[in-house]
Structure formats: C-alpha cells, structure tokens
C-alpha cells in the first residue's frame, strides 16, 4: 500500500526511478488524506453556497460558504501540486533572443531600403499623405473635445446671488432676522436655486450669527453683516469642498476635506492649512419685513482657483 504511494509520478521521457520524480512529501499518504478532506469540505461548502443562494440567505453566509469552498479547494490543489507531484528541480535552457548579425542586417535592410526607397523617391506624395493624416488627427480632436461640454465662458466667475436675493434654507424657507441665535449656523441659498445642482454646488453659503449687533469682519465691510449675520461662501477656496464645520468658540470655519481653517470674525482669512484665499463674504441686509437678503453677488469668484480667475 505504502509503496504504491511512493511510486513517483511519471513525467514522459524520464525513467520511472529518476529521483526528480519523487513526490516532495515525506508521508504522501497523510498528505493525500489531508487533501481529500480539503476537497470534501470544499465541495460541501460550495454546495452550501448553492443552498444559501437558493433560500436567499444573508450575505455573510453566501460569502462564507463560497469563500470557504474556494479556499479549501484551492489549498487542496496547491498541496497536490506541491507535495505529490514531481518535485524536480527541472531545468530549461534559455536561448538568447537576439538573432545573428546577418538576420538583423536583412531586417533593417528590408525596412530602410524598401520603405525608405519608396518614400524617398516620392517625397511629394509622402509629404502630402502625412499632411492629410496630420490634419485629420488635429481636426478629429476638436469636434470630439468641443462636443463634450460647453465652454466655461464666465460661469465660474459669479454665482446666482443677485441684489435683493432672499436668503432661504434648503427647504426654501426664507430666513428671518430672528431665526438664529448667536452661535448658530445654517446653510443657505439664493431663493429659487435651493433645489438645483448649480445652486448646491456654487451658490451654497454659510450663514453664521456671531453677535446681536451689526458686525464688521473687515475694513470696508461695515454694512455687510446686519444684526451679526455673517455669510461666507460654503465652497472652499482650496478644492471646493463645502466648508460646513463651524467651531463657535474658536470662531473657525474648518474645511472637512483638507482642514483649512478660516477665521470667521476676521473675513474668513485662512489661519492654517492649504487654502490660499479667504472665503468670499456675501453682503447682506435686512429688509423692512425682517427677511435677510443679499446686497449683491459675491465680489469675487467663489471656490478653488483657476487660470481665468481675476
């Protein structure tokens, strides 16, 4: 019995008693038993996978049965190859890939003499063909690019905030002057854009109440923050993430993506991090009915930098 298992696996061309054909395992019978167990367990697992799929079991049961099945089968196959097949080592000669000098010469001659000869004799034709292909390449590029999207024009330079835009929250409710207590923050939009893609991506603004009195964040902005309502663009000047993280005792707006920190009380000048510019501030006023409205658009382009940004 044991002898049968010690019998080397034959590899055609080598004598059966060649030591290279010995299985690598010292105890092939044991290995064979282990592999059989692996295969049986693997098969059971995969059958279980089918059953789990049929009864729509939880994902972890599906994954466990399938993973277990594949794993056991795989381990069995590897062990078979590693322990019970001829262990070698075997050798294979490696021939240089490079050909003889004569072959190389002939190859080069075929290309240079034939091809070069044809082209050089008809230089005009070659040039014309090259020109035509080149033009086609360039021209083919333009409509491809041009049809992909509109030109930016000046859409990046301004937002939808207008003189007199009502400040509304994401549900479209107009913000009244008494809505926020000191230390509150709200994400607001110009009325009418709160549900549009562009409104959310470009016009989004954080409204923070920093005080009960009119607040000056910077020289020249004395009238921008009535009743302590300060509004900054919510689009980070670094990479455009929404700057929604407000720490009211530090008076910092922090960008959740790359941790740029903007000073709320000082015109949102970046204190730390990779953002290069302050968040643009939106000038606000309170109308006679007590609603917050914008005096005008932002005075500069919001969001990350780009070449045309003035």
């Amino acid at each position, binding site marked *: 019995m044991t002898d049968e298992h010690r019998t080397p696996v034959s590899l055609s061309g080598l004598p059966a008693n060649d030591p290279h054909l010995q299985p690598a395992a010292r105890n092939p019978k044991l290995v064979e038993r282990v592999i059989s167990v692996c295969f049986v367990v693997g098969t059971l697992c995969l059958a279980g996978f089918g059953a789990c799929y049929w009864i729509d079991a939880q994902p972890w049961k599906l994954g466990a049965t399938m993973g277990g099945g594949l794993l056991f089968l795989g381990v069995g196959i590897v062990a078979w190859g590693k322990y019970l097949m001829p262990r070698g080592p075997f050798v294979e000669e490696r021939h240089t890939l490079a050909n003889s000098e004569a072959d190389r010469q002939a190859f080069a001659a075929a290309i240079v003499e034939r091809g070069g000869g044809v082209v050089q004799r008809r230089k005009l034709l070659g040039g014309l063909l090259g020109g035509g292909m080149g033009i086609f390449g360039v021209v083919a590029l333009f409509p491809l690019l041009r049809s992909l999207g509109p030109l930016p024009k000046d859409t990046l330079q301004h937002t939808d905030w207008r003189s007199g835009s009502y400040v509304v929250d994401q549900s479209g409710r107009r913000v009244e002057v*008494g809505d926020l207590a*000191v*230390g509150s923050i709200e994400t607001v939009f110009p009325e009418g854009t709160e549900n549009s893609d562009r409104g959310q991506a470009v016009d989004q603004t954080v409204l923070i*109440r920093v005080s009960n009195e009119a607040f000056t964040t910077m020289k020249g902005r004395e009238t921008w923050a009535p009743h302590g309502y300060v509004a900054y663009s919510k689009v980070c000047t670094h990479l455009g993430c929404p700057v929604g993280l407000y720490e009211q*005792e530090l008076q910092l707006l922090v960008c959740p993506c790359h941790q740029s920190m903007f000073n709320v009380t000082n015109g949102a000048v970046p204190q730390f991090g990779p953002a290069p510019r302050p968040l643009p501030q939106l000038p606000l006023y309170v109308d006679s009915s007590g609603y917050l409205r914008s005096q005008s658009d932002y005075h500069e382009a919001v969001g990350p930098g780009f070449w045309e940004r003035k």
Partner: protein
Amino acid sequence: MTSPLFKRCAALSIVSLFALGPVLLFAGGAQASYKLTPYQSSRKNAGTPNSTMVKKNSDGVIIAYGDSSITYRAPSSALVTLGAALFQQNCASCHGTQANGVPANGTSGAYPDLVGLGPATIDFWVDSGRMPAANPRSIEANRRVPRLTHDQALAVSAWVNSLSPSFPLIPYPHLKNANVADGAALFALNCASCHTIEGDGDALALGTFSPSLRKIPSIEVAEAIRTGPANMPRFTGNLSDAQVNDIVKYVTTEIQHPNNPGGFGLGGLGPVAEGFVGLAFGVGVLALVGFWVGERDD
C-alpha cells in the same frame, strides 16, 4: 589642501541646505498664530429666537420651535433645595456660590457665568459627565461617567434656573412620530461635517474634538442641538422641533445601531480602516499563502 573629508562635508552641507530649505519654508507658513482659550461661553448674549418658528405661551415664554414634536419642561421646582446643596458641593469652587462664574477667591471672568443659560444647558453638561470638569483649564471636556445621577443633574439645573428663569428648557423628544429618513438628510447637511457621517466624531481644529454619538441618550442629543455646548454651534430657529426630532431619531437608531449587513463595520473609519484591512488581511494573507505555495531559497 582639500581632503576628501572636507569635500564630503561640503557636499553634505549643500545637499542638506537644499533639503532643509523646503522644510523651513513649510514651517514658516505652517505655524498657526491662534491662541486657545478655555471655556468662554458666549451664550450670555445669546439672541432670542423670535421669528415665526417660535411658539410662546401667554406669558411670552418659548414653549416650542414650530410644533409640538418636542415637549420643553422646566425641572421640577421641588428639586431646587437639593440642587442648591449639590451645587455648593460640586460646582461652587469654580462657578462661585451664586453660579456667576466668580469663585470665592477669584476674579470675574475666569469661569463661565451660568445664570440665564437655561436648564437644558446645565443638565447637558452635568448629565453627560463633563461637569464637574476633570481639568478646568483644558480646552474641551470629554464625556465621562457622570458624577451626579440623572435626578441630581436635574436638581442642579433646577436651582440654577431658579436664580433667573430662562430657556431653553429641557427637551423631551417624541420619537414615535419622527421620520428617520428626513433625519438622515438633515444629519448629512448639519451634523456630519463635524461628527462624520457615521457619527464617530474626530479631531477638529487646534486640539478640539467632536465626540462620538454612538452612546448618547436622546434627551442629551436634543439638548446639544438646542444649546450648542462648547464649540458646537447651536441650532435654533433654523431647525424646527419636528426636524430636531427627526435628527434625534436618526442618531439614536441608525447611528447608534447601524445597519451592517455586509459584515463587521470596521469601526466606521471608512477607507483608512478598509485600506488597512485590504492590505493586511487581503494582500498580506495572500502573500503568506504565496510564501507557502512557492519555495524558499536555500
């Protein structure tokens, strides 16, 4: 005469100059010129919500924001005596015997004045174990096992409130009618920017932290939203009671008992933990298997 050693030193210094230049430049632009202050409550001058969102009773006291999804109740006046004693024992050493932030031998302004902050604020700080503070000079207080029981915390807030009745009162959310989907949307817009979308909390600017929301009782969630403890902004007239109720429901159900049908939740850290698992347990284990499949050199 130039020795090889000298040449080497010269080359090394030039290289290190080039290398250290960017470092120094980095450092120059990097230093934050920001000073940290311990708790400085700005709630003393808190604005009074007075818009259409607010409902007041006949005495002009706010009873709700928008609707009746949350019941605001003042702590029972029967607790005032107990609260006074507890306050003198546990709080007065910093906040002073009159809760005005002036300790017996200290100066005004060193510690927060608690008068007029509203019972919800006092109850939140005491009931979450943040007060009495572990380290009164630290930037932030972490959630701890509370020193006072729930009723004792109510008593302290009852006593402080009795000095000058104020709001917000303690919010009791009615979660049965809340809409968890609306709560999820509001959470993503208003809360996730600090607490992360999984509610785990993280490190914020300058050594401050946003706490994990995984084990916070519903009343404290509502209190935090309405009062804005420490660096957290308050949410007043911009969130109606119904909306706060939705958020509280989302936090106490989906955040605290997340739906993880795909296996272990990996701590909610997201791609960092996933990358670690993928590399260590995926590539690592497979490389080990490969180590077995292949042979070792002798």
